């Protein structure tokens, strides 16, 4: 555009800028000013000004709205048309996948009316896949799932499915129409969870759960539609395009990356469904948004918690207060971006809802076994002696409070005993305290229920005592899981405190810290930080910067600073510890602070330091006035993990044993929280060579678990069992378990480690059984995946590489094996890891195969020297392998006399550590026999 034209345009733009802010009446004057003498410009501006306002039918809407769907001249198949044994009666409707007809069975035997879904030709995948998957889906027999009765391929090649005809209304609409109360909505949702859990146990994922697919029948029962349809129509794995069969507003984030969807996507969908059931509004409203906004919404923004979404509505179907707290947390846990952080199954979700209804502590707010949100504040506090006594007095119904108080002061030396007694009463009802005493829950609650109105009445004029008592009682309610009462008293406390501005700041700060802990467990970190900030102001204002309260504040601050970096977190906990030391060295909060401080070190990879902190935490725990055995179990588990990483083997075993024992006493043997620590403990025993003891533990553990396992803890503990079976040579026993576990882990992708580790075990077992092709596939796949995801120095990659190389060596592919063994050896970098020793032995075997005796000799000797000084993870059976390798080498070189002690050393280990059927045991025996035969003395 030349200069003159550019200048002309400038003038036009400038004019339009002004004109759009002026009412039409003033346009003429402005135009005259801008145009001056230029008549052409004036005319142009006049025309443009006229075009400024008003609606434009064309330009105001996106162009895409002009598009229309291609005309459908298809009225569907006619009545009477036959598909297999079915006779079509009429078109019910058209769905996204194809046409739906009403049909009846007409083979003279009996009549049955169904819905027939006839799929569009291009929506279907391969016919054999359809038939294969149909078998699996047809096996779903559950009252909550619309039954797939029949199916097949129509003559024109289109697949069809005969499904139970369901008369019902979509669940959200059903509840809205009846203004269903919360309990009824949750009951219906529970039925949905049961149905989904049932299907998941048969490893069928829905993938497209949404309110439209969940109907409620006239009898008020739930029926899920389209279960398993996605898998039946799926394109074969590896196909170039992957038809995306999900509804964007109801899809889990990982579905957008095209990854194979696991059961976690259904858990996510259940979370969205629950949200919509509670708020009557989609959690991810995308329908009305423009392209880019919809995209952003789903991929970048997290849905609002239900209580907040409800608050934004003018007339929410359920009061936001009902939804806040537990239900918010439960929905949030189902909607985590990380699939592994969600509920492991629909059952778990349902169970948590039931806990909510029974006013028991909800798991969604507990976090995983290493996360101690708000623990410092949630434990029994060392109740102030006077407050306790007053409480006791009131509960005892004494009217003469003054007299009782005086008596209490005179009996000051018994205060601690009373305190302990009361705490025991409450503790006996708390499932988290390992105890064999009968539960006294009713008694404690009744005690408190009676006390509360009396507190309010009798201390109306003594706000400071009233606050202290309300605080104490509210926290005890919390321990008992009485959420509603806890929160009500908390609020009452705040109300009383605020009647005197500037007073009772400490009590208020405590409430805010309590609340911070509550919302933190519901993952609302921002809100938690706000509460922490509020508490901060109050504490400072109260002049309590050097106090136990400030110490508790620091713990909370550290826990809410998870994103701020290790140094900040460490500093916060250090401050807390120092303050506890100074003011209350036996406060349970100190245990939490020490443990958290250890976690900071652990997260930074500093296992040594974390050990020191954990030990300090355990020591503090021993001297704490009131103890939480659940917390102790966590600390023992953390300790064991760090010790394992450091190769402090026996210590790790002892730590996990302690953790498992505490878990057993606390939760019982039939509880998921017990299985993983128990399995890890058993595996440690096994790695140490105590095969019988380990196997006995596994047997007893597994008999207390559903078989096959149904949840993550069950499968994770089974993975440890598989590790041991394979290591000891029980390949035939391991193989079916490993195949089943692989199926589970593939559906539920945990951290990559679990699945790839499983591939290694699978390959190992198949190798032992001579299934060479399968073994090759799995071992190579594991190796390649580790190469893709980990640096060469990582021990897990070294292990996978060494194993793959050993397989190749066994198949005669020496060159590649040698290359890989060398790589593993180099990756050790002087750390003295076990796999370097194995690799060196591998090189010895290569050298022998190539006739380089000297190299073979020195390498196998070097491997054993390494083994003597091994550090970190190791299995005693590796030593047997090394001795065996050397023995074989020596025998091949004609040195039977030297070979014999090596073979014996190998057999000493193998005879107890390997299973009787192990090929390694047979091999070792054979070697020894040959050595003895060749050198009898």
């Amino acid at each position, binding site marked *: 555009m030349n200069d003159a034209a550019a200048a002309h345009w400038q003038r036009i733009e400038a004019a339009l800028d002004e004109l759009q802010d002026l009412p039409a009446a003033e346009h003429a004057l402005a135009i005259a000013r801008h145009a001056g003498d230029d008549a052409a410009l004036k005319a142009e501006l006049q025309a443009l000004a006229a075009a400024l306002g008003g609606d434009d039918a064309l*330009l105001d809407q996106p*162009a895409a709205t002009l598009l*229309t*769907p*291609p005309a*459908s001249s298809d009225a569907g198949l006619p009545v009477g048309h036959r598909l297999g044994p079915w006779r079509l009666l009429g078109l019910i409707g058209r769905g996204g996948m194809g046409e739906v007809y009403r049909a009846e069975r007409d083979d003279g035997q009996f009549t049955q009316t169904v819905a027939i879904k006839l799929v569009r030709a291009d929506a279907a995948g391969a016919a054999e896949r359809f038939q294969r998957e149909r078998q699996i889906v047809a096996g779903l027999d559950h009252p909550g799932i619309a039954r797939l009765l029949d199916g097949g391929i129509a003559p024109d090649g289109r697949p069809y499915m005969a499904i139970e005809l369901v008369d019902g209304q979509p669940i959200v609409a059903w509840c809205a129409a009846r203004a269903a109360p919360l309990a009824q909505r949750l009951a219906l949702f529970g039925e949905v969870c049961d149905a989904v859990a049932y299907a998941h146990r048969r490893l069928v994922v829905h993938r497209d759960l949404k309110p439209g697919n969940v109907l409620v029948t006239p009898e008020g029962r739930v029926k899920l539609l389209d279960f398993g349809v996605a898998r039946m129509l799926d394109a074969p794995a590896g196909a170039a395009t992957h038809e995306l069969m999900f509804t964007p507003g109801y899809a889990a984030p990982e579905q957008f990356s095209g990854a194979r969807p696991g059961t976690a996507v259904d858990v996510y969908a259940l979370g969205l469904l629950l949200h919509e059931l509670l708020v009557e509004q989609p959690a991810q409203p995308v329908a009305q948004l423009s392209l*880019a906004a919809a995209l952003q919404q789903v991929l970048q923004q997290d849905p609002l918690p239900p209580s907040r979404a409800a608050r934004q509505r003018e007339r929410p179907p359920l009061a936001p207060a009902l939804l806040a707290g537990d239900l918010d947390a439960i929905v949030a846990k189902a909607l985590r971006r990380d699939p592994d952080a969600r509920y492991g199954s629909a059952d778990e979700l349902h169970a948590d809802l039931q806990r909510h209804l029974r006013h028991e502590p909800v798991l969604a707010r507990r976090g995983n076994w290493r996360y101690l949100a708000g623990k410092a504040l949630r434990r029994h506090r060392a109740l102030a002696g006077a407050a306790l006594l007053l409480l006791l007095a009131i509960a005892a119904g004494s009217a003469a409070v003054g007299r009782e108080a005086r008596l209490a002061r005179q009996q000051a030396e018994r205060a601690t005993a009373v305190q302990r007694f009361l705490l025991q009463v409450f503790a006996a009802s708390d499932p988290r305290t390992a105890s064999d005493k009968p539960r006294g829950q009713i008694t404690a609650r009744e005690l408190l229920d009676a006390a509360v109105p009396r507190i309010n009445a009798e201390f109306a004029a003594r706000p400071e005592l009233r606050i202290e008592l309300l605080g104490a009682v509210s926290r005890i309610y919390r321990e008992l899981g009485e959420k509603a009462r806890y929160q009500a008293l908390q609020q009452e406390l705040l109300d009383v405190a605020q009647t005197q501005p500037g007073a009772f700041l400490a009590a208020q700060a405590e409430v805010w810290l309590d609340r911070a802990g509550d919302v933190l467990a519901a993952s609302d970190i921002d809100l938690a930080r706000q509460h922490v900030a509020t508490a901060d102001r109050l504490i400072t204002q109260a002049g309590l910067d050097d106090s136990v309260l400030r110490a508790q504040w620091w713990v909370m601050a550290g826990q809410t600073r998870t994103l701020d970096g290790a140094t900040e977190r460490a500093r916060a906990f250090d401050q807390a510890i120092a303050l506890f030391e100074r003011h209350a060295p036996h406060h349970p909060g100190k245990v939490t602070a020490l443990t958290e401080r250890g976690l900071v070190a652990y997260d930074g990879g500093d296992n040594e330091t974390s050990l020191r902190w954990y030990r300090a935490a355990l020591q503090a725990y021993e001297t704490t006035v009131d103890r939480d055995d659940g917390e102790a179990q966590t600390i023992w588990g953390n300790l064991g993990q760090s010790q394992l990483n450091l190769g402090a083997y026996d210590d790790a075993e002892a730590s996990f044993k302690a953790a498992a024992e505490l878990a057993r006493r606390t939760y019982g043997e039939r509880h998921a929280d017990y299985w993983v620590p128990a399995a890890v403990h058993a595996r440690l025993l096994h790695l140490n060579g105590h095969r019988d003891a380990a196997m006995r533990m596994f047997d007893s553990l597994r008999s207390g678990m559903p078989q096959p396992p149904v949840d993550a803890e069950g499968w994770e503990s089974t993975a440890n069992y598989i590790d041991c079976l394979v290591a000891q040579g029980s390949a035939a026993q391991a193989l079916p378990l490993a195949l089943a576990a692989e199926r589970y882990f593939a559906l539920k992708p945990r951290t990559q480690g679990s699945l790839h580790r499983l591939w290694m075990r699978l390959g190992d077992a198949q190798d032992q059984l001579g299934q060479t092709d399968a073994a090759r596939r799995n071992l190579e796949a594991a190796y390649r995946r580790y190469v893709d995801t980990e640096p060469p120095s990582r021990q897990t990659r070294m292990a996978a590489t060494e194993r793959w190389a050993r397989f190749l060596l066994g198949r005669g592919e020496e060159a590649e094996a040698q290359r890989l063994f060398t790589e593993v050896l180099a990756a050790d970098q002087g750390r003295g890891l076990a796999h370097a020793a194995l690799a060196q032995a591998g090189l010895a075997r290569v050298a022998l195969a190539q006739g380089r005796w000297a190299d073979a000799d020195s390498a196998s000797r070097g491997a054993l020297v390494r083994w003597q000084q091994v550090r970190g993870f190791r299995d005693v059976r590796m030593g047997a392998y090394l001795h065996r390798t050397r023995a074989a080498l020596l025998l091949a070189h004609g040195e039977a006399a030297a070979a014999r002690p090596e073979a014996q050393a190998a057999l000493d280990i193998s005879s107890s550590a390997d299973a009787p059927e192990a090929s390694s045991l047979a091999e070792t025996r054979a070697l020894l026999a040959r050595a003895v035969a060749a050198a009898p003395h």
Partner: protein
Amino acid sequence: MSLDETTRRTADSLVPLLYDDLRRIARRARWQVSAGSTMQTTALVHEAYLRLRRSEGFNDGPHFLRAAALAMRQILVNLARDAIAAKRGGGAERVPLDDAPELPAESASAILEVSDALDRLAERSERLADIVECRFFGGFSDEQTAQAMGVSDRTVRRDWIKARAWLRHELGLAADLPDVP
């Protein structure tokens, strides 16, 4: 803001994806019981985005948005040309595919005219033309257009008013001019 090479290339790879998806949506829409339902184009971008993320690995919001708008423009213009060619009785180089969404002849002409007029607008002000491309062809909201262009919402709204006025004048869409002395 001019389109750089990368954006053009991205748009090019987007075109077949978006077009494919448009067809798929058209097919699904065909199966809706209620006639005359507008096509849900929102689903379209979800699928395109994921493929692009996997293949190109880019994360740049504005880059993607600009490319998507450009790609949608190309698609709509192609559909419009097909519709007009089909009306004239076929024999055109481009054979309309089975499940392509349809454009009534009037709408098709309108789209082509807007696109041509947009080219002329771009000669005068690239910024205004880009805004039209985002809003009209891309279907973006004011906020999304602002994000794509790296300007404020307010700038977008004001620019849109100017651009729209110019286009309406250029295309003869404006109502009768009032008498202005």
